[in-house]
Structures are given as structure tokens and as C-alpha cells.
């Protein structure tokens, strides 16, 4: 077996120029997949973390009724005894914090203009401790006011459409839990840029007590759970699930991925693009390799004839060609991994920026992540491509007529 592999290895380097060209092609395919896949992975990770830290959190706890029916009154599918639920949740492993939230909607007015908002009410201290601070383009976050004014953050789109700025006052109008119309005056302390124009055009954030006063209820819509790392989401969910069973309300736990619709759409699209690239690389390596291996076979017809004449089993000849192709694939994959990682590191060090993607307002860093899973998958792809490419030439070689092969010039 060792000698057999040695023969295959030496045959790979018999024609160094041709082998080098093959390695460049195979390695180029692997490097290309690593760079594209690494960049996609970076974008997806960025999108994932921004989705989570823009307020989605890693886990969310809801009243189970919230997903079964529409609310008749504001927060009638909210969580009533949320302080106890939060306390029990906080004691689980990996949990950094539990933030109560009230999601509500209504109208904003400055006396001259009105606008519809989609609001959320938060405990700013808890949010900050969990790293869920909003990105402010002006002003400051909630919670720094000592003079008793009700504070609000609004989106850049809201500020623009209503021609307001930090320090201006607004009136919030919303329907209470009893179905009555209520309003409170707030002072704008900050302008938020979430990166998504559609969100910024409707964004409002106030403190939890303010919202509960506005809506005339002590319930919350949900509890947002922040973890020490996104990778611990499944572990934490498995631990928290059973803990939520002992309350008077039926509670349900949702992972961030179940709530991140936009993230899932983007990911599906990137997966599709990457699959398409993988298919292109597969066929590129396959076609070019079949040609190369056939040329190699024709150059060695007499040698193969000699081996067959000596009684070498035909399956050995097949195995030899496949081993040579497999070794070429391994070497190409190693070259590609080296090239892809070095190029990725150079690109990361170059500090390249890309224009904002559609629907967002931030420039994007160009970074390539070095993903072990991607490296393994890309390497396997080219090794399998080469092994498949070698099947036909290998079978042809094994079926050579010995006498004709020995007479081959």
C-alpha cells in the first residue's frame, strides 16, 4: 500500500509543469471559495450580531397566547408577572441579563406634523448592561435625565420627517390597555440610526415606566434574554425551557433565529449564491481535470500495458489513477487553503470598505473570516471533483488492450 501510494505520489510530480497548472487551478478554486465564503460568513456574522444587539437578543420569552391570537386590547397577551420570570431566567447559565420590553404603536405629534411610530419601551440600564445600546447619530441614550422629563429616542427618518432635533418636545398618542386614548409629552434626547431606513422612519424608544403609564398597564410584551455568546443560544434555551413551566401564564421561549426573518432571508440568499459558486468550481475542476488526466493516461499507455502484462489487477490501475487524482486534490486543497488564508489576511489588513448594502445606511468593512468548516468543505469539494474526474480515464486505462498498449509509441 505504501509503495503503491509512493508510485501515485511520484506520478503526480512526473510532469511538474502540468501538475503546477493543475494545482494552480484547484488551489485557485479553493482560495476563491474561501475568500467568497469567508466574506459571506463575515457579513452574516455581522448581520447576526447587529440583529441580536439591535434589540432582538438571543432569546425572547413570550406569553404563549401571543402567537395564538391577535390582541383585543393592548398587551392582553403580555406577561403579567414578568419580574418573577425575569428573576428565574437570570439565574440560568450564560445569561448576561433579562430586559423587559413593551412593543406598542401610535401617533407622534409636535403640534404641526404627525407621524406613525412603532415604539418599544425598555429599561435602559439593563439594555446597556446587555450591550443592546442603540447607535446614536445625535444626542444620548435614555436614562440620564434627572429633571423628571419623559425621554425619547427617535429614528433619523422620524426626525427628518417631523423636522425635530435633540431637545425638542413631542406628544405620544396611543391606545391604553382599556381601549382609551392616552398621551404623554416626551423630550427627544437622542436620534437613532439603526442602519435600516424602514426602521428609522418609524423608530421610537422610551423608558418602560413611561410606556406603562401611557398604556395604563404593568404588563410587558416580552422579556429579551441576552447571553454571553451567541454560540450558547441552544444550550441556554435547553436549560431555560423547563424553568418556564411553573408560572400561572403559559410561557414560550423563542430563539433569535426564529424571530430574525430578515436575517434568514439574507442567509438563504447567500447560501444560494455560495452553492452556485461551489457548483461552478466543481465543474471547472472536473472538466479541466478530466482533460489533464486523459493526457497523462495517453502518455503512459505503454507503462500501463507493461503493468497489465506483468499481471497487475485492472482494479489496481483504476485505483492508481484515482489515488493520483486524490493526491493532486489534496495538494491543490493545501495550496488553496494557504493562498486563501494569506490573501484573506492581506485583505483584512488592507482596511477595505464597501458601500452600504441596499436598505442600510452604513459603509461595510471588507473582512474575510477564516472558517474551519468552510476550509474543510472547499477542500473536500475539489478532492471529490478530482476523484470523480479520474474515474473515466482510470477505467479507460484499466481496459487497455495489453498488446496494443505495449506497441504504443
Amino acid at each position, binding site marked *: 500500500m505504501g509503495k503503491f501510494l509512493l508510485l501515485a505520489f511520484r506520478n503526480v510530480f512526473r510532469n511538474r509543469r502540468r501538475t503546477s497548472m493543475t494545482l494552480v487551478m484547484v488551489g485557485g478554486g479553493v482560495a476563491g471559495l474561501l475568500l467568497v465564503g469567508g466574506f459571506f460568513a463575515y457579513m452574516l456574522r455581522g448581520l447576526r450580531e447587529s440583529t441580536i444587539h439591535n434589540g432582538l437578543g438571543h432569546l425572547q420569552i413570550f406569553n404563549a397566547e401571543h402567537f395564538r391570537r391577535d390582541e383585543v386590547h393592548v398587551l392582553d397577551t403580555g406577561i403579567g408577572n414578568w419580574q418573577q420570570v425575569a428573576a428565574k431566567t437570570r439565574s440560568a447559565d450564560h445569561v448576561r441579563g433579562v430586559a423587559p420590553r413593551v412593543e406598542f404603536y401610535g401617533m407622534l405629534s409636535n403640534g404641526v406634523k404627525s407621524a406613525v411610530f412603532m415604539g418599544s419601551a425598555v429599561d435602559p440600564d439593563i439594555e446597556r448592561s446587555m450591550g443592546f445600546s442603540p447607535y446614536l447619530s445625535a444626542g444620548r441614550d435614555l436614562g440620564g435625565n434627572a429633571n423628571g422629563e419623559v425621554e425619547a429616542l427617535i429614528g433619523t427618518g422620524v426626525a427628518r420627517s417631523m423636522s425635530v432635533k435633540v431637545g425638542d418636545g413631542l406628544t405620544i398618542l396611543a391606545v391604553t390597555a382599556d381601549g382609551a386614548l392616552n398621551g404623554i409629552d416626551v423630550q427627544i434626547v437622542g436620534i437613532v440610526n439603526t442602519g435600516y431606513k424602514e426602521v428609522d422612519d418609524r423608530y421610537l424608544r422610551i423608558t418602560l415606566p413611561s410606556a406603562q403609564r401611557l398604556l395604563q398597564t404593568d404588563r410587558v410584551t416580552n422579556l429579551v434574554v441576552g447571553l454571553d455568546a451567541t454560540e450558547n443560544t441552544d444550550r441556554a434555551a435547553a436549560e431555560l425551557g423547563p424553568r418556564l413551566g411553573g408560572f400561572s401564564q403559559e410561557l414560550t421561549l423563542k430563539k433569535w433565529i426564529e424571530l430574525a426573518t430578515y436575517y434568514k432571508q439574507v442567509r438563504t440568499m447567500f447560501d444560494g449564491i455560495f452553492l452556485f459558486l461551489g457548483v461552478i468550481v466543481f465543474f471547472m475542476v472536473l472538466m479541466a481535470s478530466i482533460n489533464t488526466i486523459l493526457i497523462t493516461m495517453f502518455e503512459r499507455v505503454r*507503462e500501463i500495458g507493461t503493468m497489465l*502484462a*506483468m*499481471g497487475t489487477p485492472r482494479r489496481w490501475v483504476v485505483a492508481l489513477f484515482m489515488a493520483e487524482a486524490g493526491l493532486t486534490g489534496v495538494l491543490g486543497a493545501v495550496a488553496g487553503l494557504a493562498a486563501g488564508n494569506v490573501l484573506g489576511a492581506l485583505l483584512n489588513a488592507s482596511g477595505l470598505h464597501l458601500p452600504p448594502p441596499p436598505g442600510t445606511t452604513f459603509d461595510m468593512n471588507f473582512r474575510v473570516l477564516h472558517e474551519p468548516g468552510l476550509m474543510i468543505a472547499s477542500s473536500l469539494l475539489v478532492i471529490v471533483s478530482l476523484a470523480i474526474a479520474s474515474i473515466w480515464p482510470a477505467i479507460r486505462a484499466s481496459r487497455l488492450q495489453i498488446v496494443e498498449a505495449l506497441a504504443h509509441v
Partner: protein
Amino acid sequence: METLVDVDAVSRSFPLDHREVLALDYASLRVERGEFLAIAGPSGSGKSTLLNLIGCIDMPTSGRVVLDGRDTQTLKTERLAALRREKIGFVFQTFNLIPVFTAAENVEFPLLIQGVDAHERRMRVLAALESVGLASRAHHRPDLLSGGERQRVAVARAIVHRPELVLADEPTANLDTQNATQLIDLMHDLNRSLGLTFIFSTHDQRLLEHTPRIVRLCDGRVVEDAQAAEADRAQVAAAIH
């Protein structure tokens, strides 16, 4: 004496330009174990075709070839390969060594495909290379060896697995006189010392002078099967040594 090869009324034709070319025409030949036999004749007389049939790398159009008691036409491809692997050693006109293997590795190859263990392989390769006088060149690749050395490596490769029969197709055709003579002497020594049966095709008169039995072919037919007389054999032996 025991018959090793029995070629019985064998014909072999090949298609060429919509007609059949008869390369061997009803040829018969019987070779005893331990013989040193030359198949002679001009180019196109059917020497290589006859060797190919005896070596089980080609099949006759009619007639039969019996090797070591086995009718080769009744054997399937894999059994024929096994027969060649175990019973036959080949020496080719153009040496046909594997260029990426060293001399020792080339000699080792027949043992490798027989599944002989590594220790045994090392011992037998060394012995085979010593028997052809090339132990010191064991780790050289073919491109670093002279033509004579390459052909001696090919002979070592043909005998390393202790076959019953060594077939050599024009083994001296690419060698100068000195190397050709050395090769003939070597083959004859191996024939005598190991009892190996040698059949080779040639039209090299130098080689024929040292051969006790010559089968002459012409136009695919056996036209002469000359067994040297006892006295001639002594002369042949004297000529060799």
C-alpha cells in the same frame, strides 16, 4: 522432461483495412521446463505474436495455448492476470521500466502485486539485483542507468518472483554488442542456475549462436525447429563460457 508450454495449431489474424492479416498460421510448438529457446525469423514473421500468445497477453484466433497444464483460452481475464503474475516474467525490447521508480522499486513491483510482505520483498529484490550484478545501482532511477543496465534491471524484474517462464521480446535489439553479449550470458546463467525456462524472440545472430534450440518462423509458420545436437550443445556451452 515436463512440458511447460504447448502451442497447438495456433493461428492469429488481425483486421487491417477491411481484410484479415494472418500473423500466425497454424503454428505448433512444445517447450519443456528449463529450456533456453529462441524464436527467430525476419520482421513480420510472427515472433512477437507467438510470444504474446504464450505470455497470455493475447488470444489465438484458433488453436490453443496450454501453459503449465492450463488451457489459457478457458481462463477469464483476472485468472489470466494471476497466471501472468505468478508464472511468467517479461523482458521487453524497450525495457519498459517504470520511470518514477528506482531500479530496486522496479524489481520489487512484481512482488508488490503478488502481495509478498515487505521483508521478503527486500530480500528477494537484493538477491535479484545481485544476480544481474546491479546491487550497487539499486537506488538509481532508470534515466540514470545505461541501456545495458536498464535491460539487466528488466531481467531482474522478470525473475524476482521466481516464475516458471521468462519471455523476452527482442531483448538485445536496443543494446550494443558488449551489452548484448553480457545479457545473453546473464540469461543463460539464470537458465542454468535457477532452472528458469527462457523463450525469447530475436533476429540477432549473436544471440542465436548461443542458443541450443532455435524455432524459425516465416510468414507466420514454423519452418524449422532446430535442436542442437549433443556435441553442438557442448560447443554452445563452451562458447558461452
